[in-house]
């Protein structure tokens, strides 16, 4: 069971959250969309990093404040390394 620290409500049981999968996948801009190939669309829509190690992912406090945020979590130990706001780039964890 994960204990997730919502940036707005504090530490809460995993039960209260929903998973938003891989973070930092930017939707192509209208301009990019005009020239994108099918392969580029497939890459955006379906291809995932799915790392064994640190994963940058989104969660939403769906049974609480209903805010979205990003989490850096290890996919083997399940350790939550960092919680950071939407829109912020993935943290460079080496510097930590």
């Amino acid at each position: 069971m994960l204990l997730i620290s919502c940036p707005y409500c504090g530490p809460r049981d995993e039960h209260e959250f929903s998973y938003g999968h891989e973070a930092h996948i930017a939707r192509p801009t209208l301009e990019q969309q005009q020239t994108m190939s099918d392969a580029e669309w497939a890459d955006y829509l379906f291809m995932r990093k799915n790392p064994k190690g640190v994963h940058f992912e989104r969660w939403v406090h769906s049974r609480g404040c209903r805010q979205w945020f990003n989490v850096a979590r290890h996919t083997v130990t399940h350790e939550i390394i960092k919680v950071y706001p939407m829109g912020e780039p993935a943290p460079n964890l080496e510097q930590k």
Partner: protein
Amino acid sequence: MKQNYSIFTLVRNALNYHQDWQEAWRSPAPKPEYDVIVIGGGGHGLATAYYLAKEHGITNVAVLEKGWLGGGNTGRNTTIVRSNYLWDESAHLYEHSLKLFEGLTQDLNYNVMFSQRGLMNLAHTQHDMQALRRRVYAIQLNGIDSEILTPEQIKEMVPILDCSATARYPIMGASLQRRGGVARHDAVAWGFARKADERGVDILQNTEVTGFRIENGVVKGVETTRGPIGAKKVGIVVAGHSGVLAGMAGFRLPVESHPLQALVSEPIKPILNTVVMSPQVHVYVSQSDKGELVLGAGIDAYTSYAQVGSPFIIENQLNALTDLFPCFGRLRMLRQWGGIVDTCPDASPIIGKTPVENLFINCGWGTGGFKATPGSGNVFAHTIARGEPHPLAVPFALDRFTSGYLIDEHGAAGVAH
């Protein structure tokens, strides 16, 4: 020559206190090069090696397994076998596998304990019933056995199900595939391993692949914890670790790895003689030959490689179980575990070529690939041997995510598994 397993060898070996059984497979040192390397010694990888040798005459083959045979999802699953899928592409593929299952014990000379005890999918709402009818008719049009049961017929088959009008989840009907059932998971892996070995396949356990040797976009071999091994062709069959191996070869997959948990109860006398699944309330249950109830449900939401999940997932499925079967309310649970399943956006597998030449992949079976073990190995062996997909595998190529020809089996298949 391998000794045949039969009642006579059993008696003879019993008289010798079981001292003289032949080893089921050798553990040779790796050769410098193979015609085909199969990465992953689960059921799918071992079946691939077996059919490469048996049907394509390719015997200079190695199966590389980082741990022990069947230690991945093959040895962790709840062993449900069925072919009642909605879409034609899946129906044909899973039915191919079910037919192979029907002759597998004889073919492998190994008792895989395939028990066609029937498999029931419950419907609890009007909408469940509509979806169920559509599915059953589609399955019948594909020539696969499937029928609709009334609540009275269900009650007769499984008297311990709460079919009363006041049930928390009223039972309005069910679909039944009589040819569905369960098999012994380890036996499937061991049976394929033994027969593949007999035909000359090298089975190398404790041999982890750590990288690929790729020259000008063509795979030439693999790096392993026991040194480099050359290969003309390589097949990746590593289920939950597919993304890791794809990463080593420099491409990405539309696959995510999630924990899937299962558990068994203390053993009890025979009480349930079929498989019961409820897609809506989300639990499924069968009784093993030892008497344990074997239970499973859905994946944990987050990605993971840890082979453990969160306890509330188990709590949910036990709630569902005791609502459907009140008499199980005081049973104790004995063991619980998790596996890492490779889920695809359309809940269908990926079988075929990769962006690297002579490197093939078979993955994405997610929560439901045990039933496909012989069929998957069979079509994948063909795909590797010919360098062209088996006709049944054509729709399952990686490029369907580019073409948009997805085979959406979410819900369509009734439930995961």
